[in-house]
């Protein structure tokens, strides 16, 4: 039983994929959630210069992530700025702080939008929408 509404026939906005985050999205497509881990221990959702130790992207490798986190902040959309989201209203967009440290933007699902709270524990799940996988934060923890 899921609270996810039936998706519309509209195509979702395209993912922005480049060299720095292609392994992230390839893993999502394979049903896995990964992060780039710097040799100093900091984690990121893409290859980049490390904000902790200033090492370059060469110091990072992709590792499996726990997928556990907490809601840092969130908003609720009652109006769709893009037709794909018409069928999903109202929906929640949140910044989630992962246990590995980084924050990611995602949607919180499996909960009434009005019941979402800052600090609420969530777990990353991989959802499919119109032939494309995407990570979501499930409140059914």
């Amino acid at each position: 039983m899921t609270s996810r509404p039936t998706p519309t026939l509209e195509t979702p906005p395209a993912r922005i994929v480049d060299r720095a985050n292609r392994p992230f999205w390839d893993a999502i497509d394979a049903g896995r959630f990964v992060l780039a881990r710097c040799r100093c221990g900091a984690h990121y959702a893409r290859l980049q210069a490390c904000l902790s130790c200033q090492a370059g992207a060469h110091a990072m490798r992709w590792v499996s992530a726990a997928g556990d986190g907490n809601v840092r902040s969130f908003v609720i959309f009652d109006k769709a700025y893009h037709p794909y989201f018409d069928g999903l209203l109202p929906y929640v967009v949140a910044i989630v702080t992962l246990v590995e440290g980084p924050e990611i933007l995602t949607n919180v699902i499996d909960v009434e939008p009005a019941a979402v709270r800052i600090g609420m524990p969530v777990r990353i799940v991989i959802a499919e929408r119109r032939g494309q996988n995407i990570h979501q934060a499930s409140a059914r923890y």
Partner: protein
Amino acid sequence: MSAYAIAGLGVTAQGVLPDTSAEQLAWDAVEAALADAGLERRQVDGYVFQPGFGEATSGMAASRAGLGAQVTLQINSSGATGILSIATAIGLIAAGTADYVLCVHATNARSQSVTVGAGEDNADAVFGLFSPGAQSALMAQSYFHKYKASSADLAEVAVALRDNAVLRPDAYRYGCSLTVEQHQQSRYIVRPLHVFDYCLVTDGAIAFIVTTSERARDLKPKAVGILGMGACHDVGQGHRRGASTVLGLPDFDVEPARTRAFAAAGLGLADIDVFQFYDAFTILVALQLEAYGLCGPGEAGDWVRAGNFRWDSRSPCNTSGTLHSWGYVQGFTHLAEAVRQLRGEGGPTQVPDARTALVTNIGITGAGQAHAAVILGNR
């Protein structure tokens, strides 16, 4: 004595102007600024403009016709561009490329029915996060949680902005009062922000001329000195979260801009007679009141509720109603009002004997947030 000055100001009508193109609005603002300064078109040898929403995205060719411009720049740091255009103009003058630089912004987003920030070309769109308003709603949610504050606190900011505009015949919301109850009962745009937490989208233009204080002395005697400025742009935010989202304190860090502006001016907070804080959304005003030290962390709602912020209070802020209630010319709006206050042209909301003004701009640019501060004055 400051080395540079704003020597001419041109402000068009603000509102719903479907019969006036963005080009025409820019032309009108430029003409008004030239007349205000007492300059001939051919004397203007620098032109800096911020592209606007609606039609105003191109080169604004008509407004440049007949100018003696030797250098023309289009710059954009979203809502922070007004103050940064002053920095750009000073740079052009200091480099010896120009003597009088026109800074211009025009928009007809209202008549073109532009939905700001609805594009798909960013990493957030895949999750359905659209618009600077949604970014500000994330800040507000975080702020409410951190300080046990609520939407009613932000309503105080919206009402205070409106109270100032109600008195001003040049404001779009002239004579239209707003209450906390009306704010609280208004529809949500992106929860937790109500429609009255959002600024106006109107048509209009503003132009001003930057030159040296020495040259300004030969123009009409209305120049306002540029005493100090600073800027900061936290591009690291997006890298921390693999997206372009911004969030409230402590991410909202104005310290580099604040410190530089006050240090360059040789002034402290107590020396500022009037404030013009960037007010695209009420939460931005609350965060700045606290970050600039007008009140303590989490106290913005109570501070405004107590009667501060009003044009006739001890800490007069946003004396025209600015983006929320006067008109939407982004960061140029606040500069224009500061110049008017320092020239004694604030009309019904003129702060008596205003000699110094702090102006801030914020750009939610899609790569962290840009912030800029400038202190203007007659001293």
